[in-house]
Each structure stands twice: as C-alpha cells, then as structure tokens.
C-alpha cells in the first residue's frame, strides 16, 4: 500500500511526491442520472495518473469536475492540501490547472503562436491600463512570456507551423498545439482528455513520447483519460478504473490488469 503522507518510487525509479489533488467522495448528478457515484482518489506530484473505463463510465465528467466545468453535488475537492470552494473554470485555470479537450477546443482563427500565448494569460499580471498604454512593465512581461511560449513550441516540435492559423492544421497537429497551449500555463496539474482519440498509430506514438517527455523534463503532474488500454498501461504510474460512475479499481497498471472487476467491465460479464 501507499504511504499517504510521503510518496513512492515508480518502477523506473522516478520519485513521486505528495498529494496535489484529492477527490473525496465525489458525487455528480445530472437530474436523476448519477454520472459519478461516491468516488475518491488522489493525484500525486510528478506522476502520470490515468482514469480509464468503458464508454459512459463518467471519466470525462470526472475531468470536468477537476477542471471546474462541473460542480459536484456531494464530496470535497482538495487542491494542494486545502478544500477548494466551488469555483468557475477560469478560476481553476488561474490556480494552475490546465487542460485539453476531447474534441479539441483551440482558437481556430489565431496562429499557433497566438494560441500558445493565450496559455500564458494567467501569468500576465499587468493591469488593463498598463496594457492599453503598453508601458514598460507590460512590454517586458510580453517578452518573458513569449520566451516561455517559444521554448514549449520548440519542445513539442511545432516550430515550423508557428505562424500558421490553427484552422488549417491536420487533426494530429491540432492535438499537439492544444497540449502546447496547456503546457504554456506551466500548470501544477495538467489534465488531458483523450489525448490520443482519433489518432493513427504513428501519431499515438508521438503523443505518448511527448507526454512522457513533458513529465520527465518539466516534472509536470499529469492526469489523463484514455480509451486505448495499451497506451494507458505503458504511460501511467497509477490508474483509476471507472464503470457506470463507480470506481472499480485503483492501482498500478499491473494491479489493475489483474483486477477481476476491471476485466469484467472491459470484457463484459453475464449479469444474473
């Protein structure tokens, strides 16, 4: 079992730290439908945490709870050790939680660079008047943020399309730009909603490599949802398995793979 206060060391020898995000007995309802039923789990500093489950299991709902798009009816969200009051998605983003979307939500009319720069918005502190007058502070701030954005663009190997309007890019690259924008926020927690959905094998391999590199290079804590079991097992340190809104498994990929409830959920089982 895990030590709750300390952390653990992964199979490949990475040190995982304390709890960044903790979900306590979360229940989320839409009218009479319970999308999430009394689920608890935590996400630790520096780890890659996956949430998996069959269609309609409530994975995306869970991600939306973490990122503030949904407010759960019951339960508590603890961020960096203290309970988080119900807040708007933009406030969650300002607290250092960045995300991507299953169906890609980029600013189609803007260039790749501009899109990545929007990821820096939470780091820009100068006020409206300073910005409008373009005073010294506003200018140096823009330069500093631009440097971070360029670094991330280099890192994700999208320099060649920096100035291209996003609407013209193919699907796989759009996914990568969305990752770049989320990374630009230098988040304490990065949420990826099906980062590999709709990709071919080659694109999936690229994306997996980037996710691992990001985690390795920047030490970013990542929580991701993914359908592709193979990919999840390779990438993640710990896995939460959901089915019909309930948590049916939680542990390392090896532990989860051996869990009978998980096997039943994925392969189907005769109900009596």
């Amino acid at each position, binding site marked *: 079992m895990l030590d709750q206060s300390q952390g653990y060391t992964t199979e490949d020898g990475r040190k995982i730290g304390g709890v960044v995000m903790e979900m306590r007995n979360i229940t989320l309802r839409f009218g009479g439908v319970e999308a999430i039923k009394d689920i608890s789990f935590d996400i630790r500093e520096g780890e890659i945490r996956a949430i998996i489950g069959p269609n309609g299991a409530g994975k995306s709902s869970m991600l939306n709870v973490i990122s503030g798009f949904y407010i759960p009816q019951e339960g508590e969200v603890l961020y960096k050790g203290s309970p988080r009051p119900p807040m708007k998605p933009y406030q969650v983003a300002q607290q250092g939680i*960045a995300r991507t*979307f299953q169906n890609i939500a980029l600013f189609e009319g803007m260039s790749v660079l501009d899109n990545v720069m*929007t990821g820096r918005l939470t780091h820009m502190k100068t006020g409206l008047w300073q910005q409008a007058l373009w005073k010294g502070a506003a200018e140096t701030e823009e330069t500093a943020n631009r440097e971070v954005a360029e670094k991330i663009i280099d890192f994700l190997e999208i320099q060649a399309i920096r100035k291209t309007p996003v609407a013209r890019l193919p699907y796989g690259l759009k996914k990568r730009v969305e990752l770049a924008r989320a990374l630009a926020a230098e988040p304490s927690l990065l949420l990826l909603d099906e980062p590999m959905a709709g990709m071919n094998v080659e694109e999936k391999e690229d994306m997996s490599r980037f996710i691992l590199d990001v985690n390795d290079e920047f030490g970013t804590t990542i929580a991701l949802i993914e359908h592709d079991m193979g990919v999840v097992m390779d990438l993640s340190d710990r896995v939460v398995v959901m089915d019909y809104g309930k948590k049916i498994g939680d542990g390392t990929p090896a532990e989860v793979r051996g869990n009978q409830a998980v096997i039943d959920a994925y392969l189907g089982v005769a109900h009596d």
Partner: protein
Amino acid sequence: MPEQLAFTIEVFLNGLMAGVLYALVALGFVLIYKASGIFNFAQGVMALFAAMTLYGIMNGQVPFAHLINAIFGTDIHYFGWSIPAFLSIILTIGVMILLAWMVQRYIFRYLVGQEPIILFMATIGLAYFLEGVGDLMWGSDIKTLDVGLPQGINVAIDEATFGWFGYGFFIDNLDIVASVVAALLVIGLVMFAQYTKQGRAMRAVADDHQAALSVGVSLNFIWILVWSLAGFVALVAGIMWGAKSGVQFSLSLIALKALPVLMLGGFTSIPGAIVGGLIIGVGEKLFEFLIGAPYLGGATENWFAYMLALVFLVFRPQGLFGEKIIERV
C-alpha cells in the same frame, strides 16, 4: 480638367467621409457580435444616449429633472455650471462603462447560452428601455452638441483645388476630423486586440468560449470590456453625428444604416466594417449624383444601401470579410 470630373471627385471624397461615420456605428456592432454572438440592436440608441449624456454633463443639466420636478413640485433644470468638453467626455466614458456593467450584470448574465434570437430580442428591449431612460434623464428636446470641433467648409482645400482645377471642393472640416478620429480609433482597437493581454483574451473569447475558460479567461469580464468598448465607440459616433445634425431621436436610427454596412463587411470583421462603410458612403453619393438625380428623380440615398446589401445577401452572404460558414454534414 472638365468640371464634371472635378465634381465627381468631390462627391467621391464626400462619400468617403460619410462612409467613415457609417463605419463608426458598424464598428460597435462588430465588437459585441464577435465576442458574444449578440447582435446589439441597441447600438444606435447607445450612440444617442452617449451624446445626450455628454451634452447633459457639459451643460450641467440635472439628471431626471422632469421626474424630480413632477414628484416634488420643484422647478430645477440646471446645476448652473458647465464642465469643459474634455472632462465631460471622460465622465461620459465612465457612464458608458457603468452601463456596460449593468447590461452584463442585469441582462446577459441570465441569458448565457440562449438562442441568438433571444439575445437579439433582449437587445431590442434594451434599446427601448435605454431610449426611455435617456429621455427621462436628459429631456427629449433637440440639442446642439458642440465639443469644439471645427465645422464648415475647409478653406485651404477649397482654395487649393480651385487653384488646380478651377473648381473649389467643398469639404466639411467636421468630416475631416471624423475621418481622422475614426482612423485613430480603428488603429487603436486593432493594436489593443493584437498586442495586449486583454485583447488576446478578447479574441480568445470571440473564438471559443470553452477554450477561453480553460486558459483562465473570465467571460464575464471580457463581455463587460467589449460592451464598454462598444459604448466608447457609440460615444465617438454620437459626438460626430450629434455635431453634424444635432442630438435628437433620429440619431438612434443611424443604427439602421449600419446594417447594410455589416452585410457588406461581414459581422465579424473590424476592417470589414470600415471598408463596408466606405463602399456604402461612396456608393450612395456617386449613385445619386451619376444615376439617381439625373434619371431616377433623386432621393436614391435612402434606399441605395439596402439595395446593395440585398445584392450581397444573394451572392456573398458572409460579406466581403466575414468568416465563410461551412456546415459539415
């Protein structure tokens, strides 16, 4: 140079400058429509309200004087002071920002995610409400707004062109000022949108609400910001039109003239609003001069713009600069 040609050039120039004023109104529509998908029918009334407020503040009018007099049997109308134009403009900007905040706080906050037609109906309601409040606050009499802008024929141009062509152009100083102000306003707005943090956030909201939220942009703040900017643009339009033809109810009808401008320029493009305004301004003046007056009995300026808009609706519904709408099946 034949006099006919010189005269045509003069009509062309006057058309350009009339177009600038149309563009100013259209600009207010585009700002709000881009950021929130709301077609703001109240833009014209906002221009009227801004001009009335500016006049009221400048001349030390007591707001709601008629109402106060009717209830308390008093007879007050003026504070008895007058405030310099520049300071009054600053104060009016403050009033327009307050209005933007109230519009967002008390109307559109409750309509987030509603159908466009419902948002549109809300702005019609806002238009009538604001018109009523404007009258109640400042009185419905026709006022002459004078913020010290130069008016009348520009003598230098008249003399210079007379020297060159043997025919002096009649160009109004006010139109020149309006053109310069409009140009500065557009440059300022574009720079703001391109190079500042709030401008970037504004473009983000215009593009995708969900994505904007995920990068930490408060939609509410941005909407108040664009309504404030639209209020500011309305004020500028109100000052120009008010100086030209007086502050009166018909000022709010210039919003209708902005519609064909938007059809031409596209609802989502700031440069489009400018170019559309110029085309309509020049088009209606030239048409009247070359075809309307000699062959059609004149007064074509009233309908030419709508006619042109109709042609555009048939052949290029997204306008010259609008985003092409492609629905994937």
